[in-house]
């Protein structure tokens, strides 16, 4: 009864002074607004879906090309033809991978697929370089190529199928459409699921070992300095760290955990005065890998040169001999200096240590020795220099004005270490470093030197 009365009451109120029409208008406005917003969101959803469709169809296009090119590469006879095909293949694989990275699927479902795309172009390119140098491809390598082609054919087929599903309106990319399909009961294939099926097709894909930067053996190289070194205890690690930072500075060191990454380490925290310093010490051999001190000096009281001297002292004190400054970068009141090991006349760039010095006290507030620990050898076999300095100059582009010539050992992308002349020169207002192999005169690498008041960067 009360309800009826309430209704009557509302009706009464509405008929009072046009209230009825006002309420109606306002409701219509809000409803119209709601409909407008809904339509806009549909538009956005479609726009996003179109973006995904573009990325997907591009992916299909490039994988198709990749498959065709790889098939041709298997039957190519002349090294120059293999080279040309390898370049094409690398390009298709790179674009395919870039488009794959734009699709809304979690990395779990495209780990192997992306891996395959990274390696296939790389691998073929390394084989083509072999062929160019006159080496014949081994039967194993040719078999490998055939295997890769089988994978690419499989991938191509599955993707073509997915593309048909997409054009047929069955395959949708955006995750919001899954809700509707759940409600309507299906007829829609989810993109995630299709990608998982493709990913499973790669489960037998064994990792490739070859002459390229993505090869397993290059990425998972065992660090040289700790290979056969014995494991140290936690107490030993604490003692070494305390000594490293300075027994007079450090009040205590605690082990906070362990790291099971590419280098096994103890994670430590050293207590210094008013703050804590994070550090890592390798379990094997007890080398300090990393020191991170957050301290920000208030002002600079020394020049970079003095800081470099302080850093060199620090390194010598801790057993790192023959380290020379290569590049530095100033940040606020600190400076980060790169040190490379020098053997004889050669600056060994792979054996790299980075030291951060505070420009007020000259103390070490940062240390990073990943490069050194991975690559350092006390004595490398120095090559016979078949090319003289004069000949090396001749190998450099005549447009470059050469100002300086040194010697260095640099790493190539496939992990190889080459000994070179390092020629510094200028062209068109830009500074370059050109590396000429001392054994065969090959132009191994060119770097651009970017210098500003904060330091030097090489690219």
């Amino acid at each position, binding site marked *: 009864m009360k309800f009826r009365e309430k209704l009557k009451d509302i009706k009464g109120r509405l008929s009072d002074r046009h209230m009825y029409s006002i309420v109606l208008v306002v409701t219509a406005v809000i409803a119209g607004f709601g409909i407008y917003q809904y339509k806009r969101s549909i538009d956005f959803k479609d726009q996003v879906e179109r973006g995904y469709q573009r990325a997907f169809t591009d992916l299909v296009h490039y994988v198709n090309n990749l498959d065709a090119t790889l098939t041709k590469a298997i039957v190519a006879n002349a090294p120059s033809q293999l080279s040309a095909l390898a370049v094409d293949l690398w390009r298709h694989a790179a674009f395919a991978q870039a488009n794959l990275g734009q699709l809304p699927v979690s990395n*779990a479902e495209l780990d192997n697929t992306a891996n395959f795309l*990274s390696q296939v172009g790389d691998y073929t390119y390394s084989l083509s370089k072999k062929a160019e140098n006159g080496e014949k491809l081994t039967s194993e390598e040719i078999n490998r190529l055939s295997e890769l082609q089988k994978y690419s054919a499989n991938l191509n087929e599955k993707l073509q199928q997915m593309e048909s599903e997409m054009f047929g309106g069955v395959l949708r990319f955006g995750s919001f459409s899954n809700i509707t399909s759940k409600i309507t009961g299906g007829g829609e294939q989810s993109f995630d699921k299709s990608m998982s099926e493709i990913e499973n097709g790669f489960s037998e894909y064994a990792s490739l070992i070859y002459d390229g930067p993505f090869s397993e053996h290059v990425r998972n190289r065992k660090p040289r300095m700790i290979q056969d070194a014995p494991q140290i205890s936690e107490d030993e690690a604490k003692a070494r760290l305390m000594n490293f930072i300075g027994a007079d500075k450090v009040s205590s060191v605690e082990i906070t955990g362990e*790291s*099971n990454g590419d280098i096994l380490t103890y*994670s430590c925290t050293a207590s210094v005065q008013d703050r804590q310093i994070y550090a890592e010490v390798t379990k094997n051999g007890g080398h300090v890998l*990393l020191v991170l001190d957050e301290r920000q000096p208030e002002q600079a009281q020394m020049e970079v040169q003095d800081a470099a001297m302080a850093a060199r002292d620090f390194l010598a004190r801790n057993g790192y001999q023959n380290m020379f400054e290569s590049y530095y*970068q100033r940040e606020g009141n600190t400076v980060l200096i790169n040190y490379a090991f020098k053997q004889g006349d050669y600056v060994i760039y792979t054996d790299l240590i980075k030291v951060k010095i505070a420009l007020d006290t000259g103390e070490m507030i*940062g240390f990073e020795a990943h490069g050194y620990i991975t690559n350092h050898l006390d004595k490398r076999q120095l090559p016979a220099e078949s090319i003289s300095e004069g000949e090396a100059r001749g190998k450099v582009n005549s447009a470059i004005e050469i100002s300086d010539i040194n010697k260095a050992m640099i790493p190539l992308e496939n992990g190889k270490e080459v000994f070179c002349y390092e020629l510094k020169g200028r062209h068109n207002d830009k500074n370059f470093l050109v590396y000429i192999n001392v054994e065969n005169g090959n132009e191994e690498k060119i770097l651009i030197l970017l210098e500003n008041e904060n330091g030097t960067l090489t690219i």
Partner: protein
Amino acid sequence: MKRNTLIILCWIFVAGSFIISSLTNGPALQTANGSDGSNTNNDTQLLARCVNGEARGEPYIGQVAVAAVILNRVKHPSFPNTLSGVIYQPQAFTAVSDGQINVPIDENSQVYKACREAMNGSDPTGGAIYYYNPAKTTNQWIYNRPVVKTIGKHKFAK
């Protein structure tokens, strides 16, 4: 008369706020105050924005670790080959999907310095390419990845 005008004004206020709230966007896209606009500065700014969204409030070392994971992904064959490719990869980072990637980061802030640290080569994660907060993550698959270490509230995995 007064009471009815009040009611009408209330309705207009409600409708108006509806309209205004849906027309304005989330955190507006602002430009960063990079000092010289070189490539490395923009990369660092982008990295800092992502790390800020992912690890704001974590200690310095935690932020360096998250930045290092992102940089490790760029080098890893299973991920896109550019920094922006890795950061903007769909479903990779919540900071991107909820718009925090558009918040500019001050170059003097802790997170920016953490990113510089990581870009200089410091990697406290030992090469990890995944990280997750075990208290919050709903993704079951990530638990199968081998854990390298734990920093703060994040576990880092390969």
